[in-house]
């Protein structure tokens, strides 16, 4: 839920990266963190297990510049993708302003993709949100892998509502900023509507 501070002239928004385990949510944030000017970012926090799997969330605060004299700050969060962390995922969706769904392009991860997407919709619903009404974009990650399936198939299975979607190779940064910009734009557009 965006937080508008007229006193310090700031808009704060929360964006959540969602998707199945090992799809590259944390990698997206790491790339953004590495490529952003020091003055525009805060510390990136990863609450991860010893094997670097996300345990609770990753967090990256980002300043995108000013709009009509208001500083825009985006707080990027990832959820833990593994199925059994569902209680944690629900908590992180609280107060969300925009969602990025990161899908894994590999054939063998299709079932996990679909399960995660259903889980996203369900968890949002429990909090009173409707995925179809939220600022929402889709990213197809790992496009460089030989077992990546065709875009048309991914679109059909994972993006039935035809929201903006992006091909990505997160460790190389391909598609990472395009995805972020798209969701940030949607969030600001929603704010204009008074959402």
């Amino acid at each position, binding site marked *: 839920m965006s*937080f508008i501070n007229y*006193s310090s002239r700031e808009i704060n928004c929360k964006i959540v990266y969602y998707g199945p385990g090992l799809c590259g949510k944390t990698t997206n944030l790491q790339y953004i963190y590495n490529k952003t000017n020091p003055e525009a970012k805060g*510390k990136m*926090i990863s609450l991860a297990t010893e094997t670097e799997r996300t345990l*609770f969330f990753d967090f990256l*605060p980002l300043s995108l510049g000013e709009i009509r004299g208001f500083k825009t700050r985006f707080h990027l969060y990832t959820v833990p993708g593994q199925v059994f962390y569902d209680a944690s995922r629900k908590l992180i969706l609280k107060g969300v302003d925009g969602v990025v769904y990161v899908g894994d392009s590999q054939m063998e991860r299709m079932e996990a993709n679909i399960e995660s997407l259903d889980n996203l919709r369900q968890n949002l619903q429990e909090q009173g949100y409707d995925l179809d009404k939220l600022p929402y974009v889709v990213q197809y990650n790992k496009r460089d892998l030989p077992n990546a399936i065709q875009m048309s198939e991914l679109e059909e299975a994972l993006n039935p509502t035809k929201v903006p979607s992006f091909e990505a190779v997160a460790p190389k940064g391909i598609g990472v900023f395009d995805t972020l910009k798209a969701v940030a734009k949607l969030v*600001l*557009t929603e704010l204009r*509507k008074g*959402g």
Partner: protein
Amino acid sequence: MTQQLVMYEEELQQINSICEILHRDSNAKAVLVIDKNGQPIAQAGDTQQLDVTSLSSLTAGNVAATGGIAQLLAEREFAGQFHEGEKTNIHIKIVGERVILVVLFDERSSQGLVRLRVKKAATELTSVLETMIKKSASGSGSVFSEITDDDIDNLFND
């Protein structure tokens, strides 16, 4: 789904003043007010050395996780938390179901004193929050209705 929070000058001043009084009266190192979603709202005391943004996000995560545990135990919420460190202790309290009041203190104060002062501050904070929520409901987004597509595009021209 919670409603969007809009902060105006008047309420922020009141919240700042509550923080400063609490900081002084409880002999605390620092006092923070954080939105339950992890956004820092106000602070008082020695916050120069603190990474307030990260602290806010992690505290909110902590409170959310504790809230999840409460639900599993059929409790409405655990309104307060206390963490004891070697040098710094932290007292966390949910106020008005919407914000989190955080007090960092050391050996110059005590948990009893902090709890006592927090109780008073929480009552005052609740009343300011109620005003804030009412105002948020009536006048939100007025400035932003004038934002154009160009304004948004310009943000991303790098």
